[in-house]
């Protein structure tokens, strides 16, 4: 399966949020800890709704959590 170009900063953001654990984030958005691990490692791309839930749980905007090549002003 083609790997996703989407990257994320969930791990860094968790640590900046009083070292929130993967289990706490998983509980906050209603998924298993394995799913959070898979998302952090880029092995799973969450749905748009789950992506918003993650951003809300980390108290940041969607763009702060997920990144796509070209985000920094490059043409897509």
């Amino acid at each position, binding site marked *: *399966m*083609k*790997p*996703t170009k*989407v990257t994320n900063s969930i791990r860094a953001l968790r640590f900046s949020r009083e070292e929130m654990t993967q289990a706490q984030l998983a509980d906050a958005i*209603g*998924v*298993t*800890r*394995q*799913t959070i691990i*898979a998302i952090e*490692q*880029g*092995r*799973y*791309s*969450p*749905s748009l709704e*789950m992506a918003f839930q993650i951003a809300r749980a980390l108290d940041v905007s969607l763009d702060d959590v997920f990144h796509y090549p070209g985000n920094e002003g490059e043409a897509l």
Partner: protein
Amino acid sequence: MSFEEKSAWIMGVLAVGSYAAYLVIVLGQAAVIPLTSVPYAAPMLWTIGASIVISIVLHILIRMASPRNAGKDQRDREIYRFGEYVGQSFVIAGAVAALIMAMVSLDYFWIANVIYLGFVLSAVLGSITKVIAYRRGFQAW
């Protein structure tokens, strides 16, 4: 390992194991009587039945071992659907093969066995697909 990944392993291993047991029983009898005369229905039903019972018991045991991981989320559902979709190709292949065999009036033995083989391959391929999706990654986007 999540509950659903363990479940995929169980289903794959049981499909291979029960089919291997079936082959050993049927091919063992084929040594003394012609293969198409071997009473295949009882071994087939028993191995399928045993596989279902063992599967239920193992699922109960892994659920009891780690109840916190027993939930199913969006990723689990997507991987399950993807695995079933991939595995379904063998069910269709088995059905088409059985249809052709019936048209050319082959023995019921071969028709029943090609359908059974289609189910087994479907379960094995579906389980392998799910395990790979859990291990290597799954991108819905």
